């Protein structure tokens, strides 16, 4: 069954992912496509950070070329939710990583469309003062 993974601005459909109860097995390349984290020998890496894969006594987190990203996420203390009937998974950002990012005062980057579907990134506006203002119709 097709699996869709949402993580930050990404929404990735994967044909070769295997959801099994609380486990979500992804192939090596799909880990990076879906999450931005690279699966390397030293662990899962992104930017300057590598998080080692834990050696668990009970259920292993890896199986050949597959990684149970949901188990990794829970091990890291990051939120994971899923809906089995629809194959939808959300891999969230942990509160402490979010808090650290905000505490650094570096404005978190994002990419969003305008009404015409044109994508804008915050970093496109680097060099200007940006008044980032939220609003809604509701």
């Amino acid at each position, binding site marked *: 069954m097709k699996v869709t993974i949402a993580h930050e601005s990404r929404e990735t459909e994967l044909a070769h992912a295997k959801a099994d109860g609380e486990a979500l097995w992804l192939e090596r390349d799909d880990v990076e496509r879906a999450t931005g984290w690279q699966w390397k020998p030293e662990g899962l890496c992104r930017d300057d950070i590598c998080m080692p894969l834990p050696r668990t006594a009970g259920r292993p987190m890896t199986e050949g070329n597959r990684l149970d990203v949901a188990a990794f996420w829970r091990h890291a203390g990051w939120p994971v939710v899923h809906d089995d009937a629809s194959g939808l998974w959300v891999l969230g950002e*942990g509160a402490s990583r979010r808090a650290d990012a*905000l505490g650094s005062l570096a404005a978190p980057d994002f990419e969003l469309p305008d009404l015409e579907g044109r994508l804008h990134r915050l970093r496109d506006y680097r060099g200007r*003062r940006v008044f*980032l203002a939220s609003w809604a*119709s509701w």
Partner: protein
Amino acid sequence: MWQSLQLETKDQNFTVLAVALDVPEAARPWIESASASYPCLIDRDHVVAELYNLVNVPQAVWIDETGTIVRPAETAGSNDGFRAMDRQTLVVPDDVLAERKRLKAAYFDAVRDWAMRGAESPHALDAEGVRARLRVPDAAVAQAHVRFRLGRLLARASRDAEATAQFAEATRLHPESWAMWRQTAAKNERGLASGPEFWKRVDALGNRPYYAPVEIDAASPPPKGGR
């Protein structure tokens, strides 16, 4: 809402970047009637709310030329005056309206001052000032955001009952977020989540604010060269 500000500051190294925590269909008529000259982005999954810990609209974040936050998420020119509304006639007392107008003008003045003067503006906070005002998410808030996101995915897949359950859980985990609640609550014919359930939630706030008040230093020095 911000077009006058954008026009007044068009020669400055400044832009408004509007983000609708909303679906495109609902945001479109507002954007089209505003004929804004600044970018109007659509954030149907409230990604920016998660990144910047926004809980309501309008809230704003000031980001300087280097990509550094110089004012963290805060209420952008609104106050709780609407709570003094007569719920039969929808009339807000004149003095409350006047105070709301004054407060909005003070906030606009502060944004304009920063747009013109950048780091010279006393309203641009130093790192210590930003951190003192910064509110960061806890584990429950992080959980709420994944629930909300899953709800949005389910809603787009027409799984309404399952989506509603996720939204309820998100709101339970993050009751401070009016953005999550109002986005997913029942709307009236004008598209507003302002029925009895809304007022019940507002009344339940008691002494707590709907729009957290913002300290804008009114006694800031005049711009160099006077005005």
